[in-house]
């Protein structure tokens, strides 16, 4: 019995570690987004939503666990590969990486108050102040 009790939180933890990533936008944002659209926005290859409105992607700092999940699931690359990718653009005047925020709460706040923003948090962290555009499993 005791073993089982220990097992449940352990399972919950491992489940949370592989949490789904929710890509979030402002509640007023009606654009539909595919994984490819998100990839383009977060790699600087697209600067507008599919409806033509300007997009401002906000990233999470590498220290936040969900960042690595997002890089892998949405962009198909490791965080190191993404850093190499951006260093090619930053040091050649060809692009600027998305702004990085230090916590999921900061991303939620930034997206909630900016109609142009697009960010991501773990699915469990989503609040009513933002709209989930796509969930990445």
């Amino acid at each position, binding site marked *: 019995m005791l073993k089982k009790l220990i097992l449940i939180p352990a399972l919950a933890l491992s489940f949370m570690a592989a949490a789904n990533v929710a890509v979030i936008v402002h509640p007023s944002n009606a654009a539909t987004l595919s994984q490819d659209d998100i990839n383009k926005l977060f790699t600087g*290859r697209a*600067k*507008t939503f599919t409806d033509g409105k300007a997009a401002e992607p906000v990233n999470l700092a*590498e220290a936040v666990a969900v960042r690595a999940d997002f890089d892998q699931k949405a962009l198909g690359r*490791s*965080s*190191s590969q993404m*850093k*190499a990718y*951006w*260093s*090619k653009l*930053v*040091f*050649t*005047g*060809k692009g*600027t*990486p998305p702004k*990085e925020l230090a916590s999921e709460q900061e991303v939620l706040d930034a997206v909630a108050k900016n109609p142009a923003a697009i960010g991501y948090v773990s699915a469990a962290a989503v609040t009513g102040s933002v709209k989930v555009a796509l969930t990445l499993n």
Partner: protein
Amino acid sequence: MLKRKLLAATIAASLCGASQAAVDINGFASIKGGMALSSDDELYGYDDDLSFKNESLAALQVKSDLGDKLSVTAQLLGRGADDWDVKFEWAFLSYDLTDSLRVNAGRLRTPFYKYSDFRDVGYAYDWSRVPQSVYGLGFDNIEGASLYHTTTLGNFDSALQLIVGSYDGDAAIGDATAEAQIDNVTGVAWELGQDGYSFRVAYLIGKTTFYVDPLDTPVTGLYAQLTGFGLGALAKDLDIIDESSSFAGIGFNIDKNDWLLVSEVTKATVDDSFISDQESYYISIGHRFDSITPYVSFEKEDNQAKTEIYAAVPTASPIFTPVAGLVNSLELERDSINVGVRYDFHPSAALKAQYTNADNKTADRKDRVLVVGVDLVF
């Protein structure tokens, strides 16, 4: 990228209340130790003494967004090989005409090769150095303006760059460097990419002038002497004064299922001069095992001396030896093999090691070099 945002407003408050421009400071560095593997070997600036200076570098980039689509970027770079003298490697302003069209003007990188723009940023690629057989023109920068256009064509991402400008500084001439001036540089580079595949072409032309001390010297120089002998036409075939020059490059890159394949083929010519036509290529294959990426690459340089220049000169003539010697000195056939590994041991740094064996068939010598180092961005 760890970005340090300094709100200029804070600085401005103490200065003169300038606009609220945000300043981004980024940097990169490579610290490498390397040496040739036997006492006779020499390659890429290494001999058989371990050197931490030869290929190490550090750079700091400051970019200020002035708002209204205008920004200014300066990149200060110091190379160990230049005693860490810091120079402006890039210094340009950018103006975004539209979301997909940007004008850069100032000191820029000439887009000869796929890795030209970021060849100094070792962190951005897996090798310890870009393949020297191909990346060997001896100059990188240009003062001018470029138009950079990005768009999607069907499923492809297209990046088109048009550039105009001129270069004034040292450039490679065989294994040596000489003072050069390349005027009216006009070029185009186009890269198409889709889902791990990319394809690139580049073509540039310009007017090249080289000043080579013992050749161009008045009276005693080779050209002056030839002209004195009534061989002015031969002197003109040799000298490098405002000669039409061209560079053509084609390359592809595949990054699929953790396999990495990249290749470039280039040809550079300087007409009506003793500079040989330079044909080069490399092919590199690697595989990413999580944070460890081993690779092998093969490079080839084939520079054929323009022996036709002195074909009409009798071998008994006193000028035959100096002229043939000069022309033939730019003959080079060299194959190089590289084996190396990149290890991403840290979120912002990669440890790399690379062994190179260069087989110079023209000089009948083999040179081997081993380099180990860390590339990082900050």
